[in-house]
């Protein structure tokens, strides 16, 4: 074929891709939450190689949103790079044993503690261009000046090219225009009590605020570390699931009375 024609064909294909981007076609496939309703609303799950925005629904519950991001990292898999401001790390430091208690192996995590929001955004753009990264968590507090449609669009283009999934974690922030594929509000809710009225597994109220070409919704989920998936909080309470059965260990190890406390 004539080289010029070849170029033109490529250009047309490129334009077609750009035009067709608003269709819910996700190049990297979906990662299911494990919760049927959420997955149905998302058309299969969270899109890999896309930008997702997670908001802490209340200002005094940053740990809930951080935990939810860590759980998504675990589900998405691969190396995780978590970028945050030094201010945030001084205030609430990410705790290795806590990550491991959620099921995310801290050995797979790189932590970038950067001086300010601009540095986080710049480093974020670098991380999203690296195809070896699985998930990049970009944690920003309040509403940084340079985080707008342009910055998020740049992120979104970088994730589509490299296949890295980006989680934009927003604390104490108000949603504004962005190019993210989905936008969520995360709030911790009362867990299902264990025996002795002990706090149970992490439980969240998850609100889908925006989904490109999809619906909205609000669900209550519970995170189960053993199966590394979410399940419905109310349904789990009805069915009385207390512990999930591990595949590699005898049941008797798991079922007896809790020793903690």
């Amino acid at each position: 074929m004539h080289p010029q024609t070849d170029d033109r064909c490529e250009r047309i294909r490129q334009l077609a891709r750009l035009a067709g981007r608003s269709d819910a076609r996700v190049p990297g496939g979906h990662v299911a939450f494990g919760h049927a309703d959420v997955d149905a609303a998302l058309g299969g799950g969270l899109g890999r190689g896309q930008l997702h925005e997670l908001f802490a629904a209340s200002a005094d519950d940053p740990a809930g949103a951080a935990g939810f991001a860590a759980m998504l990292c675990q589900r998405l898999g691969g190396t995780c790079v978590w970028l945050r401001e030094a201010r945030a790390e001084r205030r609430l430091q990410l705790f290795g044993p806590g990550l491991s208690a959620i099921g995310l192996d801290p050995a797979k995590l790189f932590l970038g503690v950067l001086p300010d929001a601009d540095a986080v955004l710049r480093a974020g753009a670098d991380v999203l261009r690296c195809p070896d990264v699985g998930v990049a968590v970009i944690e920003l507090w309040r509403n940084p000046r340079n985080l707008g449609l342009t910055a998020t669009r740049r992120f979104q283009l970088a994730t589509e090219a490299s296949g890295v999934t980006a989680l934009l974690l927003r604390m104490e922030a108000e949603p504004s225009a962005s190019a993210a594929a989905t936008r969520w509000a995360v709030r911790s809710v009362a867990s299902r009590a264990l025996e002795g009225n002990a706090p149970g597994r992490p439980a969240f109220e998850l609100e889908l605020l925006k989904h490109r070409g999809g619906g909205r919704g609000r669900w209550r989920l519970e995170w189960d570390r053993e199966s590394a998936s979410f399940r419905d909080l109310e349904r789990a309470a009805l069915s009385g699931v207390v512990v999930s059965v591990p595949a590699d260990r005898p049941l008797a190890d798991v079922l007896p009375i809790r020793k903690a406390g």
Partner: protein
Amino acid sequence: MLVATERNARRLTAACPQAREQGLAPGMTPADALARVPGLCVDEADPAADTRLLLRLSDMALRWSPIVQPDPPDGLLIDISGCTHLFGGEDALAADATALLGRHLSVRHTIASTPSAAHALARFPVSAASEEQAIRCLPVAALGLPPEAETALRRAGLKLVGDLADRPTAPLSARFGKQAALALDRLLGRADHRLSPRRPLPALQFARRFAEPIAHVDSVLGAVDGLAMKAARVLEQRHQGGRSFAISLCRSDGEMRELALETGQPTRDPALLQRLLRERVEALSDPLDPGFGFDLIRFAVAATEPLESVQADLQARGKQGEALSALIDRLSVRHGRERIRRLLPVDSHVPERAVRSVPALDDGQAAAWPLPPPGEPPLRPICLLDPPEPIEVLAEVPDAPPRRFRWRGVSHIVTRAEGPERIAAPWWQKASEGRPTRDYYRVEDEAGRRFWLFRRGLHEREAGHPSWFIHGQFA
């Protein structure tokens, strides 16, 4: 004129040339000196500052050779073997050194075949045809012996090194001590005397000297690239790659600027080094100040590791993980190596010590994280408050979980709680030594937030009124 207190007496320790002409010498009392020369300017000696200056000068001397040993109180020993061609010969190197150091200091230098000879000849200048004869003409004081041994030598009629040189060593060491014999052997080149360089020697070093100082940053970077290319060729022949690189930019006025680069994986790719170097220069908090220009650039490969040569991959796809380590290198160079970190587990029950955060570039075995107990909800919070923040708590004594607590001005009513999980100080540390027992509780408030609280001290056993703290937040 400098004065210091020695053995409870004030003595002069140093005198300037003018003062020496007036007959003053170190060892006199200040009263004597003032009586001879009224209006004398006397200052307190500051040996610590002298040492600091000497160390700074020894860093500056890296310009001439990587092997520099400070020779307190007032000397520098520089091993210039193999370095002279860069400056066009020994004399040119010496001229360069005296010109640079001589701006603010008086300098004497000697080039000799052994460090001891150079040390002695620089302090006791003698004129002789050859180095060997010059050493023989040195006074015995040049041996640098303690005063008693020196006096003993003089009393024995041995005034010059030459008098001692031909005598057998055994009687000398029997009479004047082993030290005298060793000093003599070293001076005469019979015993080995090695310099211990102040800085570890780099595995490889390349330098380039310019006829005219260059000041433009781009030309400087270009010159470094050239040196990196040379280094890469040598590394390839040796099947090695560099892990850390040091670039010293020597200014024509003697100041030196050092840039360090580190990579997570051994490398010898000049293109990668060029990129990292540019990032490093861009990230400098104070920009590269060329002053009157740089006239010497050194490129040192400080640490090397084996790196087999690889055949160029025909399918341009890089190896898995290579892009990641390049990313970590780039972020570490751009934002600072301390800012890109990894978390390593530490075997400790004290929560804030159970994790160690290290720069991602550091070596270190990635130890496996202990697995959480199966079937349990998370027992450790995802976010830790360090240091723990004090809270006001309503709880039954002695060890019931909290009913409600107030943190940062907000009141929380506890609906679910579990505890205590008792974490005591290690047995070799007593609670009375400021490490009281902590009782941890996992609590959940009515809004569904989960916290990690602890009571510091056991009720009435370790503390009258134990205080409460919040240490973390669960997801």
